[in-house]
């Protein structure tokens, strides 16, 4: 990233919400979306990652996308804390739709109700989806 040298030294800190509402396999967009999340963290922004809708399935343990020659995203999700991304939330109602429980999730995430998420979203400077 040789262009980083041209950026100002002190950047504002914004709250960026990244909404994952579909599975991370099937097309490459999920994978490329995770790249933006990691880049935001690398720029020291306040990052919140929200899993909702179909997206909650991305958090399930024991996925084997390798058997379809697809990339396993779990190692990337595992590295979120390394990037200081600790605000990972899952929508409670979406988990109920798929009958998921907290101990089926592969990474540490806060289960939060839709109404509370709505309140949190108000604090965001930008929302990202894919």
């Amino acid at each position: 990233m040789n262009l980083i040298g041209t950026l100002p030294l002190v950047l504002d800190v914004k709250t960026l919400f990244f909404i994952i509402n579909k599975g991370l396999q099937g097309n490459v967009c999920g994978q490329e979306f995770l790249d933006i999340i990691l880049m935001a963290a690398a720029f020291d922004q306040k990052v919140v990652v929200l899993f909702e809708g179909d997206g909650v399935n991305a958090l399930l343990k024991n996925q084997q996308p390798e058997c379809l020659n697809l990339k396993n995203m779990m190692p990337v999700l595992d590295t979120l804390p390394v990037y200081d991304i600790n605000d990972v939330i899952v929508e409670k109602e979406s988990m109920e739709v798929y009958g998921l429980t907290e101990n089926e999730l592969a990474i540490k995430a806060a289960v939060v109700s839709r109404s509370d998420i709505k309140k949190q979203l108000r604090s965001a400077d930008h929302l990202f989806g894919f």
Partner: protein
Amino acid sequence: MKISIQINASPYQHQAADTAWHFIQAALEAGHEVYRVFFYHDGIFNACRDSRPPGDERDIVKRWSALQSEKGVDLVVCVSSAQRRGLLEKSVAKKVGGYIHAVADGFRIAGLGLLMESVIESDRHLTFGA
């Protein structure tokens, strides 16, 4: 207002590139600054030099190039999205024996750092084709 734009969808198959282009025209006319247009995911196909639509149709790629040459809007194509989809920057293409004229005039190829910089620098970041 300082505005940055992200385009996630390919031209012609989706309306995202059209809507974004019209939005940008209106924003510039109203006196706003368009800080950067960042092409991500299949949005990188907006930069295909050899796109040749029939003569009675709008030429989306040429329209972007004109936006850069006439209004000076910064058009940035994500390097990893582009390489994955076969759109190579000249020096990379030379190195790997690829097609060296793939990228249309007015576009530059760069990393996600430039997306994040424009998100931080702008008052609004709008995504088309999410």
